[in-house]
């Protein structure tokens, strides 16, 4: 049995090596995707083009404006004289937001009343708008705090030190600079592995069926289980190599730390690859042409990506969709990837993910093996 599997393995690897496009597919494309994704995928908000309408022209208003600019989040896009001009700038896309300081700003502050600051935001991109508003809130709160302290210092220096206040001391764990790349790079690793391994497995069988060489293989003494193993083991190995390749790009090029135990990652990757191979096999039993296999792959890939939490948090999805995410092996693999890369957690934390991937893998494998035997008859 093992001899026959071995020969099939040799045949598969020979076929893979002779296929020039496969090399592009397996090496160049993942690296390219990794690099583009690493740079392009970011939800960070910096350099917001900001128009400032200062009706007050006081020391206070200038101080507030300079704080916004000094934060580095906002860039002065212009000083429109009125709201219409600011609106025009936002409409034309020359500014993403406008800050309007009203005439009696300093006077209200000095009187101890609330001084309103109006912020007009182009909220077409709601996420960037929300984050920018968050920054404005933080800068505004700091300004008000300092103004109050300053005021007390002048008015009643003895009391100034006693005035109570609560401040926030933020500690972003595992990603202290809140770097988008640290979040996306492990995600891209999982997605790339899924696409490559699933497609390769599906195509390996469908191609033979389409070209007609599957019949030649069938007339040899090989048994269905052997054929299946011979068709999946190569892609299991390719999958491991692929993970190593993209992990190298992520850690060496993007400097994403790898803090965990490589063995935990290996275990998680192996479990994930089993379910991926099973999906590939399943597709191959459903399709008779490569075109169909390719298209069917999409029917699996898009939900698999979307439900995995790869870029968009699962917690923000509607409840029913959150349930569906439990059926997605990639969901668990991403937790393992981010856990081992950033959080340095081990099996004691990641065991539920491992068990879930093993269960899903077993079920998928059982279905695809049953179907695979039938499709050969």
């Amino acid at each position, binding site marked *: 049995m093992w001899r026959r599997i071995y020969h099939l393995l040799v045949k598969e690897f020979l076929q893979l090596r002779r296929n020039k*496009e496969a090399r592009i597919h397996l090496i160049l494309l993942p690296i390219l*995707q990794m690099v*583009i994704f690493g740079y392009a995928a970011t*939800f*960070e*908000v*910096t350099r917001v083009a900001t128009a400032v309408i200062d009706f007050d022209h006081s020391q206070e208003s200038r101080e507030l404006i300079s704080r916004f600019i000094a934060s580095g989040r906002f860039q002065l896009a212009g000083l429109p004289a009125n709201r219409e001009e600011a609106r025009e700038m*936002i*409409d034309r896309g020359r500014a993403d937001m406008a800050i309007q300081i009203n005439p009696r700003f300093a006077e209200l*502050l000095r009187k*101890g009343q*609330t*001084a*309103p600051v109006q*912020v*007009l935001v*182009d*909220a*077409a991109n*709601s996420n*960037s*708008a*929300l*984050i920018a508003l968050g920054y*404005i*809130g*933080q800068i*505004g709160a700091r300004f008000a705090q300092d103004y109050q302290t300053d*005021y007390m210092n002048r*008015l009643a220096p003895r009391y100034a*030190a*006693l005035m*109570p*206040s*609560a401040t926030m*001391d933020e500690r972003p*764990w*595992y990603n202290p600079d*809140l770097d*988008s790349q*640290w*979040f996306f790079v492990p995600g891209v690793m999982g997605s790339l592995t899924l696409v490559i391994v699933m497609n390769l497995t599906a195509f390996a069988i469908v*191609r033979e069926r389409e070209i007609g060489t599957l019949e030649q293989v069938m007339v040899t003494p090989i048994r269905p289980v052997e054929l299946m193993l011979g068709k999946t083991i190569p892609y299991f190995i390719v999958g491991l190599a692929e993970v190593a390749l993209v992990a190298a790009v992520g850690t060496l090029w993007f400097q994403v730390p790898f803090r965990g135990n490589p063995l935990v990652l290996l275990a998680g990757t192996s479990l994930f690859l089993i379910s991926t191979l099973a999906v590939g096999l399943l597709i191959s039993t459903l399709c008779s*042409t*490569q075109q169909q296999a390719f*298209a069917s792959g*999409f*029917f699996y890939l*898009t*939900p698999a990506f*979307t*439900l995995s939490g790869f*870029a*968009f948090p699962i*917690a*923000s999805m509607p409840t029913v*969709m959150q349930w569906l995410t439990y059926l997605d092996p990639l969901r668990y693999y991403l937790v393992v990837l981010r856990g081992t890369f950033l*959080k340095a*957690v081990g099996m004691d*934390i990641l065991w539920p993910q491992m068990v879930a991937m093993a269960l899903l893998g077993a079920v998928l494998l059982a279905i695809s093996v049953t179907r695979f035997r039938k499709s050969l008859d």
Partner: protein
Amino acid sequence: MSAGRLIAMARKEFIQIRRDPRSLLIALLLPIMQMALLGYGISLDAKHLALYVYDQEGSQDSQALLKHFQASQYFDLIRTVNNYHDLKRAIDSEQCKLGVVIPFDFSKRIRDSGSASVQVIVDGTDDNTANLAIGYSQAVIADYSAGVQHDWLTTQGLPVAGGGGLSIEPRTWFNEDLESRNFIVPGIMALVMALVGALLTSLTIAREWERGTMEQLISTPVTSREVMLGKLIPYFVLGMIDAALCAAIGVWWFEVPFRGTVWMLALTTALFLAVVLAIGFVISAGLKNQLAASSIALMVTLLPTSLLSGYAFPIEQMPAPIRAITYLIYSRYYVTILKALFLKGVGARALLGEMTALAVYAVIAGFFATRAFRKTLV
């Protein structure tokens, strides 16, 4: 170019599509599935973030602060823990997104030395959610702090200068409720069009080569230009149906506002489809292998559309070299147009630049499409 031959060619393609139920399924079911899936699945709104509390003090002051957190719609106070270890475990196993740690001397510090600081520990792995969580916590704590100050100043009989501080009054334009769905759904349309267009056309020529029917096609009097148009017209029709389907789902199901005009949407969609189909055709004609054709097609259509078009990831935030590349990505213009039509309701004049860019792309891609096929005929 003969109209008769062209119609015959288009008819042949139509029949082929109709008889291959799977490709028809892809063409009609995929857009619906994608719209539903992405429309629901892609959300960046962070509400009800799971929050753990480690209250070292357990005083009235700390409880008052926690009430502020509870009142916020952005946080769900899930549990209180009694040590850092449990908090770390909860964050590690993703049971909570952030932990608020109130120091044991919180009220003492607030009363005697003026300033007390509250530790907010955030799971930074997802930087976007972390950023939002920090912004929301800051607002909660600032609100609490202002209240404490106000009370103190009043009891001390001091004037409450700047006590109200600043109030930020945001006016959000174009997407008043700050719904990420409104921002994502128009972009998904571009994604679906790019996907369907690339998937379908990239295989049309390669399939004929692989099945050996190309020789038969070459032996007929049909010209290369007629082959190209004849093959693309059916897919263009399918693509326009898909676009209508997507727009309908977006507007009636997801209730994304549509503020532009329908004819502008139709015109720009036609331009975009022409580009996508022509590119798919060039690839299909250039590569005689279906697998290679489809994977390359995806690389030049879907990948740039999902990453560099600005549909979800803002272009302004990318590093300068990548930003320069996005000008070469035709979907960038279509996504800009879609967002403008759906959310801003601007007219043709404001979108002239984008439309010209799409038209230029359509001409260039069309030119290459005719060339690409002629070469392989020889």
